[in-house]
């Protein structure tokens, strides 16, 4: 059985949906981060698969950008989460409402 591009795209869609539902339903900030990562990487998969199919290197370049941005976002986000958890060890994402001005 040949693995066609459709497979990759279906995988990408499934992962993205899982990430989205996870993001919307879970309250643990760490899990939410993981979900975001899942969504980003789902997009990366589609990028790579399209890049291969269209024989265009630009798609893979975009993946690198996504990776770098994701890393930066995790740094900022995690530091906020760590600061929050230090104050309230049982904190959930909803407790970020405290940051509201």
């Amino acid at each position, binding site marked *: 059985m040949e693995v066609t591009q459709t497979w990759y795209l279906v995988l990408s869609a499934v992962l993205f949906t899982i990430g*989205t539902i996870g*993001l*919307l339903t879970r*309250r643990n900030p760490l899990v*939410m981060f993981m979900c975001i990562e899942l969504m980003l990487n789902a997009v990366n998969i589609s990028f790579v698969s399209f890049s291969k199919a269209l024989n265009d290197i630009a798609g893979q370049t975009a993946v690198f950008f996504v990776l770098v941005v994701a890393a930066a976002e995790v740094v900022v986000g995690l530091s906020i989460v760590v600061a929050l958890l230090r104050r309230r060890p049982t904190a959930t*994402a*909803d407790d*970020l*409402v*405290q*940051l*509201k001005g």
Partner: protein
Amino acid sequence: MVEAAWLIPAFPLAGFLFLMAFGRRLGEPVAGWVATAAVGGSFLSTVTVFLGLLAEEPDDRFFIQTIFTWVPSGSFRVDLGFLVDPLSITMCLFITGVGTLIHLYSVGYMHGDANFSKFFIYLNLFAFSMLMLVLGDNLLITFLGWEGVGACSYLLISFWFTSKENASAGKKAFVTNRVGDFGFMLGTFVVFGAIGSIRYADILTSEFSSGIATAAVLLFLVAATGKSAQIPLFVWLPDAMAGPTPVSALIHAATMVTSGVYLLVRLNPILAQADPWSTAAIAWVGALTALVAALAAVVQTDIKKVLAYSTVSQLGYLFLAIGVGGYVPAIFHMVTHAFFKALLFLGSGSVIHGLHDEQDMRRMGGLTKFMPITAGTFIVGWLAIAGVPPFAGFWSKDEILLYAWNESPVLWAIGLVTAILTAFYMTRQVVLTFFGRTRFFDPHQEEIDAAFSQAIVGAEAGVAEAQEALAKAEQDMAKADDDVAKKQLALASATESLTEAKANVAASSPDADGHAKLVKALDKADKALPKAVSALEKSQAKLAEATQAHAEAIESIDLARDDVRTAAASVASAPRAPQHVTALTPAVDVSDFADQLPDSYAHRQEYHPHESPWTMTAPLVALAGLAAAGGLLNLPFTKDLHFLANWLEPTLFGNEVHVTAGASTKIVLALIATACAIGAIAVSLGVYLKGKADPAAIERPELALAVDYDRALAAVMGGPGNETFERASWFDRTYVDGAVNGVALVTSRLGRYSQSFQTGFVRSYAFGIVAGSAAVVLWFLSRLVLS
């Protein structure tokens, strides 16, 4: 040398800025010297530019010096630039020349004032604004100076702002001038709309349709009536005398009030293209103002008010000259008027200074011996303004009358009547101030009244005392009355009991048991009766006494009231200080009540009127020289002696009216004018110096039409006018502000509402993003499907 033009306004500006920074620290008198030096420097620059201009050919005397472009806006451009030509430099010469003298004078006049340096800050700012006004190369710069001098005028009129009168005089001047300013702005818009430029260089060479030119002339006439105090906007100038006298001299006689004249002369090509009736309007406004103000000046008693109305009147002369096309006479008379009116104002300031702030001419007189320099220079100013040859005013006034004759004999007649009145009231002023008996030491009416009102106060106290006594007597009488009634009752009951006892005794048989008792009671009652009678008699006597006392009290009250009446009558018959005085009017005899006069009277006897310091007399002497010789500027004899006319010729573009009258007519007119002036002086001397006629017959209140107009205007503006403005203000607050505030309210409500979306819950934001992207995807899908 013409390039030095920018220095002319730069000097006063520098002086202003310097004094703003250091004026308070420099204090008196250094701040004053700095300010004087600044204007003096400006005068020297003007002379330099003047010489440079003189070196050019007459037709090349037109330079524009641009400092920078102020308003670049597409094809429309306004420069901060100076227009140097004979007209503007003539203005600058006398503004800075007379200005320097007045600055110098102020150093002496403002001596000891708490805000000494502030005064000079304002003066320098004024000089700067005035120079911008005349030097500007476009209407906007002129307007800048126009507003600047208005603001300085406001600041300086209400310089002693702690008095309410001064403060409101300043406001009156400012507000009245604003009415004129709107004419200036609209005029500028009309010019811009017609030719798309407001530079004089363009305006002076452009063709206007006669409708546009007429509209512009009328609008600029409105502007000029405000600044130059003409009918209907002259009312602020007499009130402006509330300011320090150097201000009256500099701003309200010599310079600022001439800016309307300058503007109209500057715009002479527009005047030439306008319908003739619009320039006739200028002439009539001027002629009527001249006449009305001169009439009002005859009845004034305040030394500065006379000069104020005189200024309004002379400015009317200038308008008359412009209206009949005599631009050169207008400028000529403006310059000579600046000389002699500044001289007269400064002289009156010197008098006020020497008499310890006394401004009422009825309390002056005979000051020649106390202040000879002031008197001598003032007399020169008087001869100049009265039109006595060969003083400056004669030449310039005569030119105006000639041009008026050229236009219409009616205008000439009005001008001549004004000239007669001018000679009359100025003679009156000089005689009342400097000649005759020194009335300064005479008792004032308030002082006499104060002395007499003391008697009334004493008599009134007597009445109060008598009234008190009467009240007491009434009480006593009532009491005695009561007593008598009581005693009468007692007597009646005693009589009754006696009768009863007698009956009892008669009824009982002598042998009965109680008989002895009854006889005893009868005996007792018999004895009580005389007692009661005597008590009644006593109290009746008391009542008679009290009644007597009451009658006496009433009598004494009548006497006290008589005393009051006598005192009041004596106040009514108290000597009155004369309302209308001449040099011969005797002083009020105060020997009967001298000891009752208030202290102010005694203090005044010890005060010595004195001549002013040299800083004040030196400018007087210089101005007197100019007022005497100012006619040399433009002698009428030969064409070569028309210095001013030849000099101004290139700026007038041939718009000067040509006088058709022959030499003989000119001479006859001049002779008539001179004879009238001298006749008026003689009449005035007869009345005021020799006492040949009652001044009350001349100083009729009906003459003060100008004052009545002022009052009527105030009544209208204070009543219905004020109401209208209140309503407009209400409309503004309710609807205009309401619209603005409504927009703000809607915005803030929207903000408050949308705030509720910002919950701070991360997941609801995420949901928003997801829902949004889903909606976008659905939109594209639907587009795909539908296509």
